[in-house]
């Protein structure tokens, strides 16, 4: 018999999509039965009380969680988010219900042995509920009490060789796409770069010293499967600067219908016979492709690497071999000054260990932002406030047409004094000798 009646939540158990209500109920049952004889370190009925609280929320339509308090582990300023219920008398099992962010492995590959270790720890010391994964990418443990925080951290670091993730005004846990590990489109090894920078910047990740949050995300190609261009202060997007590799025989196989376009992604509907002109050449944003005597010809110099042709004909077209990343900066969600997309700062840089060129850009940007950024000002907002030119200045990058969608349409140029011959200091008396008042 459930501790709390949940008639509204119960309606979310039907339907085909995996029901989180059913899942929390099964966790509540597992804890109540306790077949393994675990000496639970937080209330046994934590999941029951969470369901009870959610039912109340579904009736009242207002959240029952209070602001986070200042909780954490010694020496770290992030990784733990305090959470308290505003009806602790009614739901004592979740009076404290803190979140622990655990830094996920790059690429989000796991062994079952490791996942079971995480479960062993979290069943003993927490609610047994997780997010796999949080929006930023962390493994998220949802719901534990203050006395358990140091114990969890000790066990993670000593027994699981595993650290916490980021929260607050620091470097948030970086995340990446599947990259070269299982994708032929990847222009660089996203896992290696993500992991290396995560380790190099552990101090920035654990000890908040920034004006606000800062996110790195690593996309292996311009398809942007981890959405770096929309949601990371610094977005690393794989690209190449030589030619798309063409297999003319495979092009013919697509035209002939032996190969399915877009790797079979459209197989659920009859879209008619594949038409390379309509489906590839005319949709190319730069119109840099043509069929010439039965052969596909690409004017690679005009190509902007949008990935469409490669996505449609992956067996015939492959990314180039001189690969690297474009670095875009300043993306963020709308809070506060409106949403911003990443802006191109470094068109191309090779991704080669120990990644010194990339780190130089990162550190120059951070130095500027930490000096000039206001409290809770994201990098993108600082760039808007002080200008893109300032960003170029602090990163020692020359302005180039690739930096803009179009040149400015107002002529209000803030000329610097050293750019104007003779400077700004002039003699009004001398001027008046030639120009009467």
């Amino acid at each position, binding site marked *: 018999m459930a501790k709390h009646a949940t008639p509204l939540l119960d*309606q979310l158990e*039907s339907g085909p999509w995996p029901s989180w209500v059913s899942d929390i109920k099964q966790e509540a049952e597992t804890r109540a039965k306790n077949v393994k004889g675990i000496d639970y370190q937080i209330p046994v009925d934590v999941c029951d009380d969470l369901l009870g609280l959610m039912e109340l929320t579904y009736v009242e339509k207002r959240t029952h969680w209070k602001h986070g308090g200042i909780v954490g582990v010694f020496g770290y300023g992030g990784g733990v988010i305090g959470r308290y219920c505003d009806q602790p008398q009614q739901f004592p099992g979740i009076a404290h219900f803190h979140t622990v962010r655990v830094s996920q492995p790059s690429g989000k590959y796991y062994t079952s042995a490791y996942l079971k270790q995480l479960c062993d720890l979290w069943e003993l010391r927490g609610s047994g509920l997780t997010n796999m994964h949080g929006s930023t990418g962390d493994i998220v443990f949802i719901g534990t009490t203050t006395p358990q925080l140091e114990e969890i951290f000790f066990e993670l670091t000593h027994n699981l060789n595993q650290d916490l993730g980021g929260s607050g005004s620091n470097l948030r846990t970086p995340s990446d796409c599947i990259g070269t590990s*299982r994708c032929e489109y990847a222009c660089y090894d996203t896992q290696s770069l993500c992991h290396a920078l995560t380790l190099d910047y552990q101090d920035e990740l654990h000890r908040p010293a920034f004006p606000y949050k800062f996110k790195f995300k690593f996309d292996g190609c311009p398809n942007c499967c981890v959405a770096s261009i929309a949601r990371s202060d610094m977005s690393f997007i794989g690209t190449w600067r030589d030619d798309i590799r063409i297999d003319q025989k495979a092009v013919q196989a697509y035209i002939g219908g032996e190969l399915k376009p877009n790797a079979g992604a459209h197989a659920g509907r009859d879209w008619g016979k594949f038409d390379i002109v309509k489906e590839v050449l005319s949709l190319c944003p730069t119109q840099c492709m043509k069929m010439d005597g039965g052969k596909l010809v690409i004017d690679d110099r005009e190509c902007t690497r949008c*990935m469409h042709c490669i996505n449609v004909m992956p067996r015939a077209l492959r990314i180039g071999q001189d690969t690297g990343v474009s670095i875009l900066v300043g993306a963020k969600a709308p809070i506060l000054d409106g949403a911003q997309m990443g802006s191109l700062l470094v068109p191309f840089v090779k991704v080669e260990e120990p990644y010194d060129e990339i780190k130089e850009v990162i550190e120059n940007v951070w130095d500027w932002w930490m000096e000039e950024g206001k409290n809770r000002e994201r990098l993108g907002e600082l760039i808007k406030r002080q200008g893109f030119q300032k960003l170029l200045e602090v990163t020692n990058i020359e302005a180039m047409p690739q930096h803009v969608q179009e040149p400015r349409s107002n002529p209000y140029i803030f000329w610097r004094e050293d750019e104007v011959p003779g400077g700004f200091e002039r003699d009004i008396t001398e001027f008046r000798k030639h120009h009467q008042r």
Partner: protein
Amino acid sequence: MAFISSGYNPDKPMENRITDIGPRHFEEFYPPVIKANKGKWLYHEILEPGVLVHVSESGAEVYTVRVGGARLLSCTHIREICEIADKHCDGYVRFTTRNNIEFMVDNKNKVAALKADLESRKFAGGSFKFPVGGTGAGITNIVHTQGWIHCHTPATDASGPVKATMDVLFDEFKNMRMPAHLRVSLACCLNMCGAVHCSDIAILGFHRKPPMLDHEYLDKMCEIPLAIAACPTAAIRPSKVDTANGQVNSVAVKSERCMFCGNCYTMCPAMPLADDEGDGIVLMVGGKVSNRISRPKFSKVVVAFIPNEPPRWPTTTSTIKKIVDVYASNANKYERLGEWAERIGWERFFEKCELPFTHHLIDDFRDPAYYTWRHTSQFKF
């Protein structure tokens, strides 16, 4: 319950302390076929919805079966994932950015049994535990935030509307018959812990009432200057308020300037916004993050407000279904929802989707607003 020590000594917190070690190294977790063929993949193919093969230049193949999952997972459920991984995949498994779970095998002969096993498992309430799908030109899992289950600022729930929406869109998760892939995301408030602002369809929780002021506690719970500085529209000013216990320092809010972002509440717990009638859902459409064909785009607000309707949010899900159906039957092959709307014109989008256009949908927030008004005589009747 007896307290079980991990070995941590609270009197000597630095004793044997290990810090700054970061995540586990990813290579520990690569299945052998991935480790051996990293960087050598030649091409991939979606064999059927939810099943992919990647072929290496070495001739090796890896078959992936993708299943949807609620991102809120219990340890009991994770242990079941482990059991499946142990049984079919030599103990390896991975998660995707969109909260899907991928089981990989190195031989085609292993796929059918794995798939059948996954599809056979159901929760006690009847829903699938591991529905196979979410590939190609279909609708994959919804990325989302915490909502009412664990957050202090949400204007709607996250897990509930996601479950309700995915139930309605389930056939499209299992199929690949959309013009292009269609990404749905949910953020339970304007903070947008996910990238919902660039999704084909974004479900966004939104408050509509200015903060209440807990005058008696405000100065005790908050730094008043921080609360004032937090307001992007300068709607908050300091004030002195007479209470039963005498005059206190507090703030005043100019309601007509409030855009209900909740940033003040983030800085000051004595300024709560949540309201059963005020809060609800905004629908935004036409965003994308891919650079394919057209530039990445922000999603645009097409429904200014839908009330919260727990447990199944029927108005939200039926509006989404309508938009998806109209897009699916009108767009060209490869055309994303935003590209289609731009091609036919937004006036036509509202007409076809039978959505009312109201003044709320015209941008009036700062400079970028001007660039969204129509500066041409070209429009459609």
